[in-house]
């Protein structure tokens, strides 16, 4: 199959699914489910094909001019395909989860349609070959997530959608202005052509610094950098699969991925270090990490706590980017994947508690481990990973961040990491304690807020399997980190082949 065709097919899978779902009637549950799952599997297969091809040195490119001197470019490089792999994998799980989660709820057609569109945008972001293409899909993502955020149609959901747009639309605009300015300055820069900016006249350097920060503000809103994070906790009113998707792959990661592209593929890490941009990034990331953790500590409900935890965790990626050196890069790129796996696990589990037992507050979780052992086990794996306990993947991220900080000669970053780990422990361990060590309704103390009719398993298989699977993946990705094609191994390969400073 030719390169352009396979890229088109990969992108088209989701787009086609979206269109088909919009065309199908609301009640065609089976057809929709089949379509969703089939497309997710096909896409996963295509991405796997491309990964395999890429590891054998093949290139897949699709490009055509949009304007004079500006092209629409889709291209697979190892970084992009990594993100694409993550999104296709998690799409599969999230789709399965969403099918179970939205059982019997209205507007499923709309939900799944935009859901597919959202995934198509994410894939587009990951395969984009220049900033213009990235922006196209970035904004498409904003648009396609809005209906998901307001899906419930309640006043709260609509308010959250409003806040979401208030943050993301201006950010997209700022991003666009930064990109146009960069384009006016240096023309169309494909990802990987770091030399273009590096060879720019020294007099343009201050301008470059300015544009960089403008772009960071643009990406920072989606990446939820403090003080641009305000939309994220509000967006929690969305259904659980949406939260999982927003937090683990789509929106938040799109921002972080954008920053990765910006630093490594446009400016180049050396130029960024030379311009003193990385120190600023590290400072912003550190503040975000600590602030997010502190706010998470103060939350009394499960999903907001997870949301603030995301604020904190995603900044690890930015922190890793700011650490000049291969280890920092590995940390940033691998955390992109690791956080996705762990966070989606946590949100799946939170959704399971809400769906099965009606639990929203943390103090209602007492003894839920006995009632829903597998869910709770998955949750524990995710939470321990977030704290950084081996062998869950979170440990590897922390490890590379810490060693990367030493390598970049910023030992104080370790203090940030340590403080964040302690705070993570402080807000996750009490939850685990409640799950496993407190007597709850299943021990005859009190009763669940809203228990659903019992099923054979602890909850619907549609809900249980994705949670357990992502938990397993985050465990396996940690334990088998040295295996070929594990996230860590792949990022190491990416860094060694493409981003060695």
């Amino acid at each position, binding site marked *: 199959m030719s390169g352009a065709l396979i890229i088109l097919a990969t992108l088209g899978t989701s787009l086609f699914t979206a269109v088909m779902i*919009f065309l199908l009637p609301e009640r065609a549950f089976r057809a929709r489910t089949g379509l969703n799952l089939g497309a997710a599997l096909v896409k996963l297969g295509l991405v796997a094909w491309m990964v395999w091809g890429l590891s054998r040195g093949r290139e897949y490119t699709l490009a*055509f*001019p*949009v*304007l*004079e001197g*500006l092209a*629409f470019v889709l291209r697979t490089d190892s970084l992009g395909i990594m993100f694409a792999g993550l999104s296709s994998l998690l799409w599969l799980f999230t789709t399965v989860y969403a099918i179970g989660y939205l059982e019997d709820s*209205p*507007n499923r*057609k*709309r939900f799944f349609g935009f859901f597919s569109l959202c995934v198509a945008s994410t894939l587009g972001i990951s395969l984009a070959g220049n900033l*213009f293409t990235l*922006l*196209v*899909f970035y*904004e*498409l993502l*904003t*648009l396609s997530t*809005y*209906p998901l955020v*307001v899906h*419930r*149609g*309640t006043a709260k959901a*609509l308010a959250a*959608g*409003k806040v979401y*747009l208030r943050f993301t*639309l*201006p950010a*997209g*605009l700022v991003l*666009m*202005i930064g990109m*146009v*300015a960069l*384009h*006016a300055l240096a023309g169309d820069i494909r990802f990987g052509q770091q030399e273009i900016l590096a060879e720019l006249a020294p007099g343009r350097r201050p301008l470059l610094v300015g544009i960089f920060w403008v772009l960071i503000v643009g990406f920072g809103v989606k990446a939820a950098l403090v003080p641009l994070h305000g939309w994220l906790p509000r967006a929690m009113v969305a259904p659980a699969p949406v939260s999982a998707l927003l937090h683990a792959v789509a929106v938040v990661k799109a921002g972080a991925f954008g920053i990765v592209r910006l630093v490594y593929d446009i400016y180049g890490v050396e130029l960024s270090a030379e311009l003193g941009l990385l120190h600023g990034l590290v400072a912003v990331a550190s503040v975000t990490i600590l602030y997010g953790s502190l706010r998470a500590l103060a939350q009394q409900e499960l999903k907001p706590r997870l949301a603030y935890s995301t604020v904190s965790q995603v900044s690890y990626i930015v922190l890793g980017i700011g650490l000049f050196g291969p280890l920092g890069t590995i940390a940033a790129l691998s955390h992109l994947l690791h956080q996705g796996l762990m966070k989606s696990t946590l949100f799946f589990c939170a959704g399971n508690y809400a769906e099965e037992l009606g639990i929203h507050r943390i103090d209602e979780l007492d003894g839920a481990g006995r009632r829903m052992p597998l869910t709770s086990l998955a949750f524990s794996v995710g939470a321990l990973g977030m704290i950084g306990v081996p062998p869950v993947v979170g440990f590897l991220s922390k490890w590379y961040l810490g060693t990367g900080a030493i390598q970049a000669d910023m030992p104080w970053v370790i203090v940030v990491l340590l403080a964040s780990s302690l705070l993570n422990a402080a807000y996750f361990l009490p939850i685990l304690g409640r799950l496993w060590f407190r007597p709850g309704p299943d021990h005859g103390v009190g009763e669940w807020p809203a228990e659903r009719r019992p099923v054979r398993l602890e909850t619907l298989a549609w809900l249980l399997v994705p949670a357990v699977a992502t938990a397993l993946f985050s465990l396996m990705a940690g334990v088998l980190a040295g295996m070929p094609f594990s996230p860590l191994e792949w990022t190491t390969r990416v860094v060694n082949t493409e981003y060695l400073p």
Partner: protein
Amino acid sequence: MSASLDALLCVQTTVLWLALLAPSLLGLWAWRFPPQRMLPVLLAGLPLPLATLWLLHRVSVGGEFEGAWSPGGLLLHWRLDGLAGLLLLLTQLLLLASATYAVGHRRATTLAECAFAGFWPLLGGLAAALGLIWVAADLLILYAALELMGLCAVGMMLLPGKGEALVAGMRYLLYALVGSLAWLLGVALLLGSSGRLDLAGLAATTEPGPVTGIAMALLATGLLLKAAIFPLHGWLAPVHASAWPSVSALHGALVVKASFFILMQLWQRLMPEAVAAAWLLGLLGSLAVLWGGLQAWRASDLKQMVAWSTVGQLGYLMLAFPLLAGTSVAVATLAWQATWLQLAGHALAKAAMFMAAGNLVLSAGESRLTGLAGASRRLPLPLMTFGIAAVTLMGLPPSAGFTAKWLLLQAAILAGQWLWVAVLMAGTLLAAAYVFRVLRCAFVETAPCHEVRPLPAGMDLMALLLALGALGLGLGAEWPLALLREGGRP
């Protein structure tokens, strides 16, 4: 060799005039026998854009071609370049969509028989007038076509015949007539000072000076009034309130743009270096963007919102003047492309939006925004169309609005005119504000469920096609822009 070329030119000219005049004949035919089905209308109109496509192809191969026509001692010039051809194509597509939609509209509701029959000759006249405006290279043709267009537009607006529509139509009529008189006054001064009416001759003989300046000021004012540029837009919003969606679509998409097109043609030819006045026009455009956006945001009625958004979007076009006046070639090229792309994208999207809004209002039987509650469930397709069209209006990717905005931003940044960057930002945010106000209402789940009137599928389909066209033009902009680059800019 040259004989065959001449023959080809002859064929081209014939095809062009056929394409220009056929709509009015078809309109007259339809007046006599109003069509009852959508498909025949579509099929009857389809050869027109195909012919234009062929002409465009010829233009891209052999360059622009021109000619003159002399009835009774007059010499009337015309020419077809890339820009004119593209606008002609756009016009024909929109006319086709509008005509098809009108048939559907007729089937969905009970329209007065004579009003519906009257729609067709007016449509034909409008089509001919617009086509003439695009290809005219002569002030007399332009004047005649402008007046024809204005009268046809007023007539179409008056078709519903309701009280408010009459008042608004009356206002429109008066201002349109006075605007053309101001225009005519400017033309008189130009004619007096140079004695010519053809554009090329005017450009060659006119020298910048006080007379030209005053003439252009009068002329521009008349055109601004007709193009509904702030602060002379007052007639626009009320006139759309009760007009038929198919008419509103044409009007918002093309009629107001025609005046802008004429102004741009004259301005570029006669005073391309007038920076100060160009900046005033740009400022007016900026105010239009802000004021239109603001009014659209605060509007409580769906069609009013769409109409006000037209006022705002027209403002973007005006930004072309300062970016074209006295700037470098690179900036001017960018701004030139941006303007026409924005015009085309907005025309498609606005037509789609008027139609989608019309569908929503017709189906829900409610034109207030709050009446749309739950529309996302009951009327997914019109709402989707509305959303896709709105993407272009907001200038979000991958739409023509986005690509145009990119070009415009690039031009503004390159020229160092940061004011327009701020205007573009504000306009985009305002557009997002009013668009999402509608979508937000549509997502409300708690509203009581009303009866939904079913509409012919063709109505939704037409709107959707136009909206998708606006979307596709964003990434497929290279072909039209290449045509624009090659020729069309005086």
